[in-house]
Structure formats: C-alpha cells, structure tokens
C-alpha cells in the first residue's frame, strides 16, 4: 500500500486514482474515517454519523422499516423486468404473464419474487407501524412522521391492490370487482370513487389501463417521495431508542 509501488507501476497508480476519485475514503478502520465516509457518501448520508447504541438494537427495531424499504427496492427491480414483457391490454395481458412464466429466462422466479415480496411488504410495513406504536415512537417531535407513515401504509396497500389486477385472470378480476365494491359505501364520494377507480362501471380495459399506470408510475413515485421525507425526518429528529 506504500505510494512507492504505485510510482513504479503507472497502471496501478491510475487505477488507484480512479478508485480514490469514486470512493473518497477507505474502509472504516477508525471512528474518524467512518464518520468522514458517512458524511461524504451520498448513499450513507441517509444516516446520521452517530446513533445511540440502544436505537439500533435488532431487538428494538426488528429491522422492519429497513426491510420494508429493501422490499420496495426488490419490487422495483423485479417489476422492471416484468415490465419488459407485460402488455397492459385485456386481450394480451394473460398471455404475456404466461410468456413471463414459460418463455422468459428466469421469468417465473422473477414473477414469484415480485408477488411474494409484495405480500411481505404489506406485512413488514404493517408490523413496522405496530412496532412504532408499541414503543410510543410517534410522540413529539415525531408526530408528523407517523402521519407520513400512515400515508405510506396506504400507498403500499394501493400498490398491492393495483398490481393484483394486472395478470387479468379470474383471481385478479374478481378480487378487484369485490375490492372496488367495498369502496362504493364511502361517504359522498363512495359511488363515484368506484367509477373513477375503474374508469367505468365494470372491470374492463379502462380499469386495467388505470391500474397499470398507477401501479408502475404514479404510486411508486409518490411512495418514493414520501419515503425520502420519512427517512429525512427520522434522521433530523434523531432515532428514538432507549426504552
């Protein structure tokens, strides 16, 4: 690692320069280096430099918030691959799912990952909310972050619900028919809300188009923005811990 060897080997010196320009600091061998790395790295900047030891105990957080975010990333990536093949048309959607399962390389496992991660995310987000409640972590000054969290739970449910329709099989269409029927009892906007959701009176092409656009663009984008604010506030308010 001495600089002398680099001077003798220009390729190594160049590689070292490139590496050093990307990663400004080495491995966290001391607290000082670790702190500088966390401060200057974009991805690590999501965290404060130091945290209370009690706040990051696995038995305290159960990793539920982090796992929810991880599942969101896993869903985004697997969903991207599914989008290469999926056709949001009443006539072709079902066949494109069959193609994903039987023709596309690793398509079956990619669809399975997407499906099971979606169920898992509903569970982890919900458990994360329960964990935060039981630890009273929503108390001042974190009240509004709880509100953002409930919005994120709602978006998670809507993401899962809109994705449910896309395979256009019997399970999808009838679950959405029953699900949107539940919404029509809502006050004032109830009967209208079903019409707006489906873009008509029945689950048809208009509903598939709406659910597809909401599922792949609108809801993930809205969810991502709220997540960024959620994390930013966690960082600014400090981690709770210490119960």
């Amino acid at each position: 690692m001495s600089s002398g060897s680099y001077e003798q080997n220009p390729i190594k010196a160049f590689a070292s320069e490139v590496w050093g320009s990307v990663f400004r600091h080495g491995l966290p061998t001391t607290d000082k280096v670790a702190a500088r790395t966390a401060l200057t790295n974009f991805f690590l900047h999501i965290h404060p430099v130091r945290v209370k030891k009690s706040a990051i105990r696995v038995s305290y957080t159960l990793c539920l918030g982090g796992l929810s975010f991880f599942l969101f990333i896993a869903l985004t990536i697997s969903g991207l691959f599914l989008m290469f093949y999926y056709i949001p048309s009443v006539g072709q959607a079902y066949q494109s799912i069959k193609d994903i399962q039987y023709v596309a390389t690793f398509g079956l496992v990619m669809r399975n990952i997407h499906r099971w991660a979606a169920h898992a995310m509903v569970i982890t987000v919900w458990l994360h909310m329960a964990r935060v409640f039981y630890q009273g972590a929503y108390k001042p000054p974190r009240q509004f972050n709880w509100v953002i969290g409930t919005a994120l739970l709602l978006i998670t449910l809507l993401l899962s619900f809109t994705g449910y329709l896309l395979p256009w099989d019997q399970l999808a269409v009838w679950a959405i028919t029953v699900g949107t029927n539940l919404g029509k009892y809502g006050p004032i906007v109830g009967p209208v809300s079903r019409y707006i959701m489906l873009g008509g009176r029945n689950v048809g092409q208009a509903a598939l188009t709406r659910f597809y656009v909401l599922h792949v663009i609108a809801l993930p984008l809205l969810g991502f923005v709220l997540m960024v604010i959620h994390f930013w506030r966690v960082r600014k308010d400090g981690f709770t811990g210490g119960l």
Partner: protein
Amino acid sequence: MAQEASSVRNARRAGMITTRGHAVRTGPELSSAPLVVRSREEEETVVTFPHLVWKEFLSGLAMMVFLLAVSVQVNAPLLQPANTAVTPNPAKAPWYFLGLQELLERFPPVMAGVIFPGMVLVGMVLVPYLDRNPSRRPEDRKLAIGLFTIYVTMAVAFVIIGTVFRGPNFSWYWGQVLGHPGLNSKV
C-alpha cells in the same frame, strides 16, 4: 454530575425533551419544564457506518435469501383467463381487505363501509395528536396499548377468518381446516 445525567434521562423518558435536548412544545403544561442541553457522554453512541449499515446489509441479505427460497418453491397463483360471465364462489378481495369484507358481512353497509373504516383511518392518522401522554414507558400507556392491541387482534382475526373460514357465498366454512366432507365420503 450523575444526578444531572439521570435527570436528563428522566426528562427524556417523560418525553419533555428530544434526543437532541430541545424542549418539546406540546402545550402550556409542559412549558415550565427545564430546557436540558444534551450531554454527549450521557448515552453510548456508535458510528452508523459500519455498525448500522452492517445490520441493514445482513437483514437485507437474509430477506433476499428468504424471498429466493420461497420463490423457487412456490409459484405465484395464476388461474383461468378472466371471464366476467363466470363468478367464482366465493369471490374474495385481496387478503389485506378481507377485514373490510368481513365487516360488510356482519354489519349494515353504512357502519361497515363508512363509519368503522373511517374511524380506523382517521384515528390512525391522528394517533400522535390524540395521545397527549408524554411518557413512552409501557407501564404509563396502559390505555393506548390496550386499545391498539384490540385493534391489532381484531384486524389479524378478521383476515384469518376471511382467508380460512369463509367458503361459498362468503358463509362460515370449516372445510379448509377440517377437510370438505364431500371429499372424504364416497357419495
């Protein structure tokens, strides 16, 4: 000095100051609480990189292994192509909405579809503003924890009932647990 540190801790436990030592503005009753400046050595801290990042990495890795293992073994469901002329019986909403479907089975639509879910949704959003208790200790929060536990228990119970115990016409059904009588008898 130790006494001072413990008073900081007590104030924080009581929710009167934040982890950064800012006084919390929750109302006039707390405005007389002393503003306590955080003392660094009071609670043990670690650098997030690598301590927290490492835990996040391991939990993500574990989840990825779990997801892959499940996805290799169990296929996502895909039934017959959609046919609006053939209604499956029972027709069920996705599992996380089965609680709502269960409510509609038991109560008139206005209560099940508007009042109950509305109360849960609005109540959930307003939790931090309704709960004026500054303490975070479970022994001080018996009411809040009790109410939330009732909600959690009912939500989980309704989802399990909707998934397992609701058969044709969404009526009560033991078949999934005990086996369908028609499948066992030689009729």
